[in-house]
C-alpha cells in the first residue's frame, strides 16, 4: 500500500481500541483542566513559533504588531509550547515502542509525492490561519472547548467537520492506491 514502508512498519504492534484511546485522551484532558485550569492546545504553540521567527527577522515590527506583539519578546515562554514539546516526545516514544516509526511521505500509491506535499503545505497554511481566527484548533476548541459545552467550541467542531466533508471529494485522489 504505502511506498517506502520499512520492515518495522510491517511488524508494527496493534493500536489501542479507539474507545480506550479516547478514555486515555479524555483522562488527559480532565487532568489538564484540574491541574492547569485550561484544556489541551496545540495551534497556540505553532503560532508562538511563528511569532518567535518573526521576532528574529523584524523585532521592532513584530512587537509593534497587534497580534504577535501582545505576546511580548519571549513568545516561546508559554505553557502550550511545553505541552506540544510533550506531545512530540510522547508520540516519539509511543511510535518507537509500537514499532510504527517510519520516515516516509504518507500517500496513496497513485499519488505523486509533490502533489501530496503541496496539499499538506496548503492544508497547513489554512489550518494555521484558521486556528488563529477561531482561537483554537482540534485540541483547543473541538476537544477541550466542547468538553465544557461551550457554544462557540461546538460550532467550531461542527463547522470543522462541515468544511472537511465539503472539501473531501476534491482531494480524494491523494489516497488512491
Amino acid at each position, binding site marked *: 500500500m504505502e511506498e517506502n514502508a520499512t520492515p518495522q512498519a510491517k511488524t508494527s504492534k496493534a*493500536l*489501542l*481500541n479507539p*474507545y480506550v*484511546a*479516547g*478514555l*486515555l*485522551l*479524555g*483522562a*488527559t*484532558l*480532565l487532568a489538564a*483542566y*484540574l*491541574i492547569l*485550569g485550561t484544556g489541551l492546545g496545540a495551534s497556540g504553540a*505553532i*503560532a508562538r513559533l*511563528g*511569532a518567535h521567527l518573526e521576532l528574529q527577522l523584524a523585532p521592532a515590527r513584530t512587537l*509593534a504588531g497587534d497580534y504577535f506583539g*501582545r505576546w*511580548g519578546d519571549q513568545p516561546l515562554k*508559554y505553557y502550550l509550547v*511545553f505541552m506540544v514539546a*510533550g506531545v*512530540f*516526545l*510522547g508520540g*516519539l*516514544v509511543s*511510535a518507537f515502542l*509500537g514499532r510504527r516509526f517510519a520516515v*516516509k511521505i*504518507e500517500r496513496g500509491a497513485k499519488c505523486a509525492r509533490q502533489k501530496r506535499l503541496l496539499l499538506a503545505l*496548503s*492544508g*497547513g*497554511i*489554512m*489550518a*494555521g*490561519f*484558521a486556528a*488563529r481566527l*477561531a482561537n483554537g484548533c*482540534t*485540541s483547543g476548541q473541538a476537544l477541550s472547548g466542547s468538553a*465544557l*459545552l*461551550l*457554544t*462557540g467550541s461546538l460550532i467550531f467542531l461542527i*463547522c*470543522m*467537520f462541515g468544511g472537511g466533508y465539503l*472539501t473531501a471529494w476534491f482531494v480524494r485522489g491523494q*489516497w488512491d492506491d
Partner: protein
Amino acid sequence: MIETFFKAGTLNSPAAFLASLLIGIAFGVALEKAGFGSSRRLAGIFYFRDMTVLKVMFTAVVFAMLGICYARAFGWVTLDNVYFLHTVYGAQIVGGLIFGAGFVMSGWCPGTGAVGLASGKIDALVFLLGAVGGSMLYNELHPILAPVFDGDRGVVFAYETFGVSEARFAFSFTVIAVLCFWGSEYLEKKRQGRGNLWGTPFLAVFSAVLIVAASGLFALEGYEERPAPRSAMPVKETMSLQAVQAVPDHMGPRDLADRMLSGAPFLKLVDIRTPEEFEQFHIRSAVNLQVEDLAQVLLPHKNKGLVMLYSNGTDRGAQARDDLFRQGFKNVSFLTGGLEGFLNVCLKPVSLRTAPVTPDAAAKINAWRAFFLVS
C-alpha cells in the same frame, strides 16, 4: 479543593511548564496509540472509511465533560479555576470551515501533526511548516480581521443557547455520541468488514456506562436545586453561584496586570473616561464606554466572565460598578487606584522610582512595561 495554575495566575511559571510537558506527553501517547500518527487514518473519517477520529474524539469529550461535571458537583473544583474560551460566532464558523478544509487536504491538524512528525512522516513536517506560515499570515491580516471580534459574546454555554438545563444537554450529548459510535461501527462493518466492534459486549457495556454516568447528572442537579441553607450543603452549590461569588468587586493594579499578562482570560476591560483621554492612552485591549451606555452595551457580558471598569482614579469606577451591580450585573469589578495608580504601580520605569525595588519586582515591572507599552 483544587487550585489550578490558571487560578493562581502562574500558568507561565516553571512548575506549570513542567506540568504542561507531562500532560503533553500523555496527550502525545494517547494520540499515537489511537493511530493518529497517520494522515491516511485521520483523513479516513472524511470518506467514511475509518471512523477512528470520531470514536476517539467523542469518547474523550464525553469522558472529560462528565469528569468535570462530577468534579464540580463534589466540590473539588470551582468554575473560576477554569479558563473558558469565548464564543465569537463569525470567527468560529469561518475558522471552523477553513480549518476543516485544511484538515482534509493535509490529513493533519496541529496536535496530530506533532505526533506525525514524531512518527517520521515528512508530510506532517510540511504541514507544520505550513501552519507556522498560516499563523504568520493571520498576524499580518489581524488588523483587517479584528472587527470580527466585535461579535465576542463572552463565555456562552450551549445549554444556555438551547435554553435547557445543563444535565439535560450533557445527557443528550452523551446519547448522541453513543449513537455515533454505533453508527460508525456499522459503517465500517459495511464498508470494509474488518475487525470492528459492532454489536460486541464491549461496545454495549461501554455505551451503558456512559449513559448511566450521564443520567447521574440529573440526580446531582436535582440536589442542587433543592432549597436549603447553603451551609447545610457546602459542596452542592451551583456552578454559577460560585462563579459569581468568585468575582471580586475590586482589583488592584498588580492583580490586573498579572491577569492580563497571563492571557486575560474572560476579562472585558472597560475604560470609562472621555474619548479624548482614551485616545491619548488606555490600557491595552480596553474599550471606551461612557457611564450612561454601560448597562446597555455590556448586556451580552452580564454575569459572563469578568468585566473590569477603570477611570482616572478609584471613585468613578467604583460608582459605576455599584450602579451596574444594582442592575443585576454580578460580574463587574473596578480598578482600585484607577489608571493613575496603574501607571504608578505597574508601568513607572524602575529608574524613576524613589522607593527601592527588589530585582524580582524590577523584572516584573519590566515584563509589564514590555506588555502594556508596546505599539
